C-alpha cells in the first residue's frame, strides 16, 4: 500500500476504521499507519477533520416551527389526487404514447411529391412524347 491508496481509501470510507466494510483491508491499513510516519500523519489529519465536521455543521434549535405550520394548515387544502392518477394512468399516458405513432403514420401515408414528379416525367418522356419516342428509335 502507498500513501495515495491510503488517501483514496480514507476518502471512500472515512477515518472510522470500525465502519469499514472489509476487515482485511482495515488490518492492512492499520499496519501501514503503524509503519509509516507519512501514513500516520495523513490518517491523523483525516481523523481531525472528521472530528471538526459536527462542530462545523452545528445546528441551532428551530424556534416554534411546528406551531407556525399548524397555524397555516387550516388554510392549506389537501387536494384529492385520485382522479388525477386515474386520468393520468388511463387517459394521458396512452395518449402520449400514441402521439409518435400517429405522427409516423401521417408522415408515412402522405403522398411524396418528389417521387411522383420524377415518375411522371419518366413516363411522359418514354411513352407519351412522340418526338422523344421517335428519337429513341433506330430509324
Amino acid at each position: 500500500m502507498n500513501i495515495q491508496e491510503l488517501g483514496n481509501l480514507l476518502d471512500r470510507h472515512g477515518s472510522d476504521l470500525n465502519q469499514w466494510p472489509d476487515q482485511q483491508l482495515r488490518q492492512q491499513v492499520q499496519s501501514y499507519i503503524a509503519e509509516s510516519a507519512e501514513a500516520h500523519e495523513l490518517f491523523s489529519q483525516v481523523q481531525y477533520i472528521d472530528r471538526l465536521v459536527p462542530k462545523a455543521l452545528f445546528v441551532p434549535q428551530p424556534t416554534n416551527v411546528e406551531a407556525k405550520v399548524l397555524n397555516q394548515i387550516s388554510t392549506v387544502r389537501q387536494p384529492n389526487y385520485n382522479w388525477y392518477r386515474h386520468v393520468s394512468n388511463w387517459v394521458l399516458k396512452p395518449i402520449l404514447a400514441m402521439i409518435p405513432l400517429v405522427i409516423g403514420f401521417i408522415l408515412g401515408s402522405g403522398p411524396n411529391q418528389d417521387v411522383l414528379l420524377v415518375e411522371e416525367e419518366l413516363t411522359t418522356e418514354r411513352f407519351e412524347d412522340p418526338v422523344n419516342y421517335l428519337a429513341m428509335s433506330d430509324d
Partner: protein
Amino acid sequence: MLRVQKGDEIAFEQLMNRHTNAVHSYIFRMCQNVQIAEELVQETFLRVWAKSKLWIPNKAKFSTWMYQIARNLCIDHYKKQRAQFVDDVDFDRIADDSLRRDEILILTLQKAIQTLPERQKTAFVLCQVEGWSQAEVAELLDSSVDAVESLLSRARRKLREILGSTQQHQ
C-alpha cells in the same frame, strides 16, 4: 401518515413532533442559514400536508418521500442563491482576531462544505453527520450505493484538500 392523508391534524402534529428536528438539521446543514432553514422546514411540512395523498406506502418509505420534498426545496433555494464560498478566507484578519486554530478550521470547513455540489453535500451531510446508511442515501438520491460511495469520496477529498491548504497557510 395514513391518518394524515385523511386530513387528521392531530396525526400531522404527531408526525411533525417526530420529524421536525431531523428535517431541520438536514436543511440547516444544507443551507447554513437559520431563517431560511426555518422557512424551508415550514414549507416542507406544508407540502407534506398538502400532497400527503400523493405518497404511496408501498412505493417509498415516508421519510424518504419527505426528505425528497425537503431536498427539492433546498435545490430550489440553492439555484436561486448559489452558495458563495469566499475562496480566500481572510486569514490575516482572522489571525488578528486571535481565533484559535480549531476555530479557523471550523470556519473554513463550514465554507468548504457549502461549496460542495448538491449531491455530494447531501451524501456527506446525511452519511457523515446524520448517520444515514449509504443505501438510504442512495434511495433518496435515486442512485446506487456505489454512486453514493463515490460522491462521499469526492466530497471528503475536496474538504481534505481545502483544509490541508488552510493548515499550510497557517
